């Protein structure tokens, strides 16, 4: 119910939203939970396992119960904490994990079966009959999985990511965080102050404390305004630091626009914060007490009760009982009474507790049972002298505090037990550069937090080399913390620990009985702490129960730890901007537009796009186009964009020696103006890449790599230059993007060039494997006479700005000669006919020996990979080595990925002799052709083998041939 006055809500701004279709009205400043409570709606969810009715127990991100789906359509957000979601006009909120309705949930039958569904029961059953597990039991279990549901629609990917750097990151903006931020900012440090809340203040917004002559919230507002006015401070509200990573890197989730109707602003931003120093001022989380039937809607933490009361002007009930083991229970009763709410009873586990309030007070008493189904109706207490039933529609539980130390565990820090506050605190130096303070360190008074925040900031400033300036901190309450006395109430009935996963104290006792005595075993066996709240409220209590069950102290039993993220982070936040084409950069060649204008399908080649083929009118299949393009190159002339191949400019007095080291062959003897094919090995003796390298000058080479290996080869060359041979004076730079490069191939390639170039091309002047400079329409170009098709071939390179124009010109000239453009399908056929390899063959497991290039490995000089290539296992003749394959029936295609077997053998692993790597229809030879690897291949020329492709149901005979199927002596390309 709403309290008539007070709170940080704007009563002038009513907000209308719906919950399960029904209209609800709250005020600006409300969360879904506070607005629903204001409307006396306590039932907000169902638990995971037993589908028990549940209401909120917290007012923050540690909420295990009140999880709802907000919004509709593709961006509906399941499992949203009603305790954090701010309301806005038009918001739709839907409850989860119930059918047909939240009030009546058929799956609540599980609760009746709960005696049989104890921790880990599924490990012990569902095993018979064997087939039933996958056919029957598992599907039923899986159907019951989860709480909320995804929309099933593709997320529109509207969130964003960003980076920010600072000297000091202050995590949390309660009294400690504000004092720390102010201290650091006044000293001139660059500060980021991040708070999960919508505004700075922390618990000051929830409590009725005073700081000096101001209320807590007034002071917080003044401090926030002061910080916001400073140029060196960035206050990040609605921002939860989710993870701590190495070297002062923090992940943070900012809810940018989840509090407004979806619009153009990104819903969230995932921040990568880099801070030289950081301060952990995350406060503490109140813990529950495990008493029988402690899960009913209306049973809340006392701290949350005060938050609802003081911040949202909402009471969870009209008659509220308070149960606690420390002084916070009394504070809660005081606040309730001050707000005009009836305090049904104050129950304190401590026998020596006293109270002067005007409410029924029961010291030395415990709650041993509660009543009510969809909301609390009453409770039974055990007090000195007997039991008593108390009517109440809400119960606030004060179980003591756990420092919110979660982030200190992210780098393997193990919290340590501090007996005087009966809580775990951060271990010292858990995170380099991060200083915990305030309640996160176990300091629970307001004055203590302020002072601790200042101390932490001064330590951070010292590490940063800044001198602190004195700042004034107000006087504040400094009552000593009364350590909580109990964890659980011993009484019959189920007492919940992990509310969402329905883990009770009985489950922990069962784990102990079955010898899952390690905390990790207990958690994994019972699923304690595995729910969406990650055990923020319950883990420490569960540990205490396990300690009790196994007769050990808490420190003997173990500790609690937490992994990132602190709060769950949407995949659409951490992966923002990467749906669709955003996943990886796109690289376009200069001929791209011209290719797509001709309806060429563009194929991904690494990050590049390359044309598959260029269909002409009347062609119905890619094969028709491809065959035509192959014939065009073989019979006339074709033009193809080869700009995607890597091009590395290599210069310097040491360039020749450098190339001799990185290639198997010798490049120091290459003459200026000539080109040589090069094979590059990894140091482990296997082939890394191949390509041609031209000598442009005495100390100047241009290396070509394959498209795929351009980046790795560049890094490799830099490694050799900087790491292995820094003595060589050699300079490397990639020029891949500077040049647009086009292959002109075919018997009429020279004619085509001569129609463009100002100086005539003759074979005497430019024999095969030579390069020269020329001009086209006054633009200087580089020309290379090389061939990947087996025909007379040239590659013409022009600065990229002229690429589009030159491509159009080349295609036009080719067409005027009867040729045209060809794509990578034809390029592939042309090279298979010639037995030229690609990464289909040099797939990382092949040696120069395997591909028949052992002769290219110089015997007279060292080169990368030489020693390892000489290992006995890499030179055995029985290795699978490159061969050509031709089907006995030319119509059969030996598909790549199919296997080779000795004729007559069954196609099994033990019998496999090799496999096919590349295949095509050769319009030139009018047969299918293939390349593949075959055990002892070159020794088996002419042998008939069995080809089998189980997947595509092919089984026929092929003959082993030389890899070069067309123009074996190379006369066509040499011209």
């Amino acid at each position: 119910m709403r309290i008539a006055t007070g709170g940080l809500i704007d009563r002038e701004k009513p907000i209308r939203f719906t919950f399960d279709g029904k209209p609800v009205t709250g005020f600006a400043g409300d969360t879904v939970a506070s607005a629903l409570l204001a409307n006396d709606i306590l039932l907000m969810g169902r638990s995971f396992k037993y589908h028990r009715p549940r209401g909120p127990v917290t007012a923050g991100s540690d909420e295990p119960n009140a999880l709802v789906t907000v919004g509709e359509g593709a961006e509906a957000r399941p499992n949203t904490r009603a305790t954090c979601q701010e309301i806005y006009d038009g918001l739709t909120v839907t409850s989860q994990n119930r059918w047909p309705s939240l009030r009546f949930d058929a799956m609540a039958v599980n609760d009746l079966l709960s005696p049989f569904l104890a921790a880990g029961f599924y490990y012990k059953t569902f095993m018979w009959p064997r087939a039933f597990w996958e056919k029957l039991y598992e599907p039923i279990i899986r159907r019951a999985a989860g709480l909320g549901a995804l929309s099933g629609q593709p997320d529109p990917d509207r969130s964003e990511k960003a980076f920010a750097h600072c000297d000091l990151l202050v995590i949390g903006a309660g009294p400690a965080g504000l004092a720390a931020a102010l201290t650091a900012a006044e000293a001139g440090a660059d500060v980021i102050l991040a708070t999960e809340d919508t505004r700075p203040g922390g618990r000051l917004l929830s409590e009725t404390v005073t700081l000096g002559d101001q209320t807590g919230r007034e002071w917080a507002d003044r401090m926030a305004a002061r910080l916001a006015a400073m140029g060196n401070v960035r206050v990040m509200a609605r921002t939860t630091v989710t993870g701590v990573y190495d070297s002062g890197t923090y992940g943070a989730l900012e809810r940018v626009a989840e509090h407004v109707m979806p619009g153009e602003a990104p819903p969230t931003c995932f921040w990568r914060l880099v801070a030289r120093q950081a301060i952990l001022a995350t406060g503490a989380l109140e813990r529950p007490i495990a008493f029988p039937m402690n899960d009913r809607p209306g049973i809340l933490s006392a701290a949350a009760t005060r938050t609802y009361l003081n911040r949202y002007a909402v009471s969870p009930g009209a008659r509220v009982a308070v149960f606690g083991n420390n002084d916070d229970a009394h504070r809660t009763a005081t606040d309730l009474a001050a707000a005009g709410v009836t305090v049904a009873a104050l129950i304190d586990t401590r026998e020596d507790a006293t109270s002067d309030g005007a409410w029924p007070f029961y010291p030395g008493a415990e709650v041993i049972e509660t009543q009510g189904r969809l909301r609390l109706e009453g409770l039974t207490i055990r007090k000195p002298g007997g039991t008593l039933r108390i009517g109440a529609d809400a119960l606030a539980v004060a179980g003591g505090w756990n420092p919110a130390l979660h982030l200190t565990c992210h780098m393997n820090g193990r919290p340590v037990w501090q007996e005087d506050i009966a809580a775990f605190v951060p271990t010292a130096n858990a995170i380099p550069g991060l200083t915990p303070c305030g309640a996160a360190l176990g300091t629970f008074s307001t004055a203590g937090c302020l002072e601790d925040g200042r101390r932490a900031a001064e330590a951070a400033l010292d590490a940063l080399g800044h001198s602190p300036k004195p700042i004034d901190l107000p006087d504040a309450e400094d009552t000593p913390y009364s350590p909580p006395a109990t964890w659980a109430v011993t009484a019959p009935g189920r007492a919940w620990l992990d509310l969402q996963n329905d883990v009770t104290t009985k489950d922990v006792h069962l784990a102990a009985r079955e010898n899952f005595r390690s905390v990790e075993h207990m958690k994994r066996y019972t699923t304690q702490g595995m729910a969406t709240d990650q055990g923020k409220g319950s883990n420490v209590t569960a540990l205490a129960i396990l300690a009790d069950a196994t007769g050990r102290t808490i420190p003997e039993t173990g500790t609690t730890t937490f992994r990132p993220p602190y709060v769950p982070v949407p995949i659409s936040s951490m992966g923002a901007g990467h749906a669709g084409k955003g996943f990886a950069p796109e690289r376009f060649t200069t001929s791209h537009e011209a290719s797509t204008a001709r309806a060429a399908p563009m194929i991904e080649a690494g990050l590049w796009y390359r044309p598959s083929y260029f269909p002409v009118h009347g062609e119905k299949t890619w094969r028709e186009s491809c065959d035509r393009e192959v014939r065009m190159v073989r019979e006339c002339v074709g033009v193809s964009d080869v700009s995607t191949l890597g091009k590395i400019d290599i210069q310097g007095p040491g360039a020749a020696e450098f190339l001799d080291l990185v290639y198997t062959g010798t490049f120091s003897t290459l003459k200026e103006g000539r080109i040589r094919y090069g094979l590059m090995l990894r140091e482990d003796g296997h082939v890394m890449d191949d390509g041609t390298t031209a000598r442009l000058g005495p100390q100047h080479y241009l290396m070509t790599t394959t498209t795929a290996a351009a980046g790795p080869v560049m890094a490799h060359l830099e490694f050799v230059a900087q790491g292995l041979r820094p003595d060589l004076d050699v300079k490397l730079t990639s020029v891949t993007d500077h040049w647009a490069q086009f292959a002109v191939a075919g018997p009429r390639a020279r004619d085509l060039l001569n129609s463009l170039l100002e100086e005539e091309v003759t074979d005497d002047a430019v024999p095969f494997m030579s390069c020269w400079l020329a001009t086209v329409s006054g633009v200087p170009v580089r020309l290379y006479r090389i061939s990947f098709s087996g025909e007379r071939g040239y590659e013409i390179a022009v600065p990229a700005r002229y690429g589009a124009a030159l491509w159009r010109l080349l295609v036009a000239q080719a067409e005027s000669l009867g040729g045209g453009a060809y794509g990578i399908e034809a390029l592939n056929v042309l090279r298979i006919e010639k037995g030229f390899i690609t990464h289909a063959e040099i797939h990382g497991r092949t040696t120069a020996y395997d591909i028949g290039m052992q002769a290219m490995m110089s015997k007279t000089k060292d080169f990368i990979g030489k020693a390892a290539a000489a290992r006995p296992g890499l030179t055995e003749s029985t290795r699978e080595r490159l061969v050509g394959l031709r089907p006995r029936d030319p119509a059969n295609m030996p598909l790549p990925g199919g296997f080779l077997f000795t004729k007559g053998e069954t196609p099994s692993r033990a019998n496999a002799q090799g496999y096919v790597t590349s295949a095509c229809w050769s319009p030139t030879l009018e047969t299918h052709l293939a390349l593949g690897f075959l055990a002892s291949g070159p020794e088996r020329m002419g042998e008939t083998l069995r080809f089998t492709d189980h997947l595509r149901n092919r089984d026929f005979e092929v003959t082993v041939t030389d890899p070069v199927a067309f123009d074996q002596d190379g006369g066509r390309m040499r011209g």
Partner: protein
Amino acid sequence: MRYSGFKVFLEGLRGQSGWKPVWRDPEPKPVYDVVIIGGGGHGLSTAYYLAKNHGLTNVAVLEKGYLGGGNVGRNTTIVRANYFLPGNSEFYSHSMKLWEGLAADLNYNVMHSQRGLINLFHSDGQRDAFARRGNAMINQGDDAVLLDREGVRSYLPYLDFDNPRFPVYGGLLHPRGGTARHDAVAWGYARGADRRGVDLLQQCEVTGIDIEGGQVTGVQTTRGPIKAKKVAMIAAGRSGQVAAMAGMRLPIESHVLQAFVTEGLKPVIDHVISFGMGHFYISQSDKGGLVFGGDLDFYASYAQRGNLPMAEHVMEAGMALMPMIGQARVLRSWGGIMDMSPDGSPIIDRTATKGLYLNCGWCYGGFKAVPASGFATAHLIATDRPHETAARFRLDRFATGRGLMDEEGTGAQHNLH
């Protein structure tokens, strides 16, 4: 105590009071026939098969922390047999057969779920490589189906087929691939070994390996010296430190691999999906969490935690492949220490020291190997001969270059497999 539905029912009626410890906590004996260093999945399964297959029950498993606390309890639970190189093929095929009978064998429901695994491909070249893999799987006697784009769509309609950076060309379906409940595997083997008399010694860290005249004689531990004629080092993630106690240096580099799980969600992903272009794989657990992972963080690490760039890359791949999961929230991330070998394949072998055995180098594929690894290692320890399914996992293959199993084709750089 035998587990059954009836027993669960009975205990339900009597308030779960009759369950007995799943394993004992014995004191170390001074002498064992076999000592296994490492109480993870592989160590526990080795102990189990030593007892079951070879009748060796005077065996101790020494675990410095708690049983199953290493990688067997921190992985993405995928079980598959889709390798293509001889050596791996027969081994993982054998493992799959053991998985299929594991719950019955152990009398412990490891929740092995053969929901089908689909490896997606995004180019003709990748299709050809997966075709080779699929054919190799069938050559081995396992199952594989090559799906075209529409075939993939019929299984996984929620992938981005409309505007992807790397279009789906098809996929290799491995119908028997799937998942299992990781902790249950460790606990099931532990319970099975304990019931056969194996001593499982937790909080027992090995501090030295005793070798006399080229023969192993026992180990030094934090719970005192233990004598044994045979000692097996099965401590993937810490292989180097353990082997160093025996004076060995290994071809292993340790790396961190992260994994992630989201909040529980109603069932939405029925298969295990692997997206090679993005180094991303995902399945949905029986509790509803989307369990997914990616590639190594790529730097040497023993820290069991990763860093943001790789975590983000994994989420980015998820958004690219199936933007439908965008509103799922990542609940927890963790990291494991991967024993990366130079060819990406494991080692199960004798060592130069008599009676000392080595099981390591599982890279990030160790979980699915747990049954066959234990089976083969037990055979090796008991007979001093490699089991036929693991005969190629030799330590000397790197020096000789003979029988390398480099499935990724990335060569002798440990972190690239």
